[in-house]
């Protein structure tokens, strides 16, 4: 008789158990609510505002994150420079920070410090404004995107770039012609993860941009505010929209990845 491999069985059982709990948790969103109420809530002004705000700030933050994370990820992957190790650790810090702490740190930075004053003198106010929503999402999602892109560039054989240089192309042309096209899948992953992270950011947005209804209430903040008022229907609707948007993002990512 075949012996039971307990190690294997325990590990698989653990994976299935956690998957089951997650499916149940996500399923609860779709099984518990009254769907007529969900549809009604969806068309409420507050919800439409939240959805629109989340989508455009998420999209803008994603673009900004990519503009920074592509060169930073490439630099960390390809170049050796003084202080590289500490730079990498500091860039990664927000991953380990609670969002509320990151939000507070940004609130202090963009408040009455020289950085905050310099930005305000240029007409950029990031505290309790919609721009603050973008800044909060940007700093929360940036380290994730940098990590993904650095790993992507690490996987590209540097000899492709050596070859390009030997054929007469400059370092920038080589980056554009070789590194960028070869990192396409990593970039798509970075876009999806960044966007999902941006629209899901709660703590950082709440502290830096505030939770003002009709001004900075993104979907997670609408969910939180409605829970605190005891309005479960609106909270559930926000949650359902967030989950749906995440599913769509993952679906588009997998379809795009499969086509490449």
């Amino acid at each position: 008789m075949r012996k039971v491999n307990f190690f294997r069985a325990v590990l698989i059982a653990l994976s299935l158990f956690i998957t089951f709990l997650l499916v149940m948790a996500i399923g609860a969103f779709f099984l518990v609510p009254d769907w007529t109420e969900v549809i009604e809530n969806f068309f409420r002004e507050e919800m439409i505002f939240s959805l629109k705000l989340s989508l455009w700030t998420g999209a803008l933050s994603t673009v900004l994150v990519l503009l920074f994370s592509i060169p930073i990820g490439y630099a960390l992957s390809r170049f050796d420079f003084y202080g590289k190790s500490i730079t990498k650790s500091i860039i990664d810090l927000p991953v380990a920070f609670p969002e509320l702490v990151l939000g507070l740190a940004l609130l202090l930075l963009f408040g009455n410090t020289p950085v905050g004053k310099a930005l305000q003198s240029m007409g950029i106010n990031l505290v309790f404004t919609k721009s603050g929503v973008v800044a909060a999402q940007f700093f929360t999602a940036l380290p994730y995107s940098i990590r993904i892109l650095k790993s992507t560039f690490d996987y590209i054989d540097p000899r492709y770039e050596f070859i390009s240089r030997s054929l007469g192309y400059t370092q920038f042309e080589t980056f554009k012609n070789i590194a960028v096209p070869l990192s396409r899948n990593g970039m798509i992953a970075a876009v999806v993860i960044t966007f999902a992270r941006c629209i899901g950011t709660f703590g950082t947005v709440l502290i830096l941009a505030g939770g003002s209804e009709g001004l900075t209430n993104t979907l997670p903040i609408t969910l939180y505010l409605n829970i605190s008022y005891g309005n479960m229907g609106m909270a559930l609707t926000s949650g359902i929209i967030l989950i749906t948007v995440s599913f769509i993002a993952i679906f588009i990512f997998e379809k795009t990845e499969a086509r490449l």
Partner: protein
Amino acid sequence: MSFLVIEDLQVDLKEFKLKGIDFSLEEGEYLTIIGPTGAGKTILLESIIGFHKLLKGKIMVNGRDITGERPERRRMGIVYQDYALLPHFTIRSNIEYGLKKKLGAGDPSIPGRIEKLASSLNISHLLERKPGTLSGGEQQRAAIARALAVEPRVLLMDEPFSALDPQTRKRTRRLLKKIISDSGTTVIHITHDMEDVWTFADKVSVLRNGEQLQFGTADEIFQRPACMYTADFVGTSLYPGVVEKRTEHSALIDVNGLKLNSADVAVLEKSSVDVAIRPENIFLSEENPGKSLEENVIHCMLADIMEEGSVCTALVSYEDIIFESLVDRATGAAFKDRIGKDIFAVIKNEHVRLIPR
């Protein structure tokens, strides 16, 4: 001044150092670099082309110091062991890539140049395919075409045949030899295969642990290895001896009691020397061929016959001295029943090379 001069080249990559590499090549010369894995051969190539910063040293091409020049301005081509064809390009685009930069994207001569090169390397039928769909030999020819398309001043090749099967390697070697000699390109070629050295090399550099042990013509490296390591690596036997007598035409050497005549006379009497003998220069005879002024005849015992691919190595002993002789398989088979019996080793005086110690 030579066309390519590498002077005291030193590189420090933390985990590996290149220590003072020197050599020079004339235009169109072919250098093979040999040495064990981890000797620093690839790092040397990548340093010459400019991918690693030099700690010290100088690289001159055609009288111009290019040490500080960026790789894209050095006009050197490189072919890697695994070819490194750009995976998102077709073979045509791979070859076209360098030409577009050199001549401009719309240059009307580009398609013709690609066709000509592809035809000479027998890859015309593969131009629209992606690298991943090609065999090793096809990819290798495409990589050579890409490097040669821009007419580099120096072509650097890192073990370009190592991933090929013996038949493809043989064919590609022949093809490359013709193309290189037609183009007159100066080449530096890393290899582990002595066949490559015999086929291509005008000059040979022996590298070990980031140091150059010897640089010279192929004949110098094989016939007069500078140290025991090089001798062992290229398969030459070295025997320590003392010059007993020297005349105008020959020197008499005492190798642990065995007297050998050598045609090398650039040695001092009573000086210590290493006697270098190549295995293919020791002939075996069952009969005593008789004394001759031109050759050494040594009465030995056949100790063993070892089959090594298409040839055999016969080990013959004279007291404590062991000689290795290369014989074909038929001779090896014929000698098998003489193991443990007498045999005569014949070595021409000109094949007994002396290296002063």
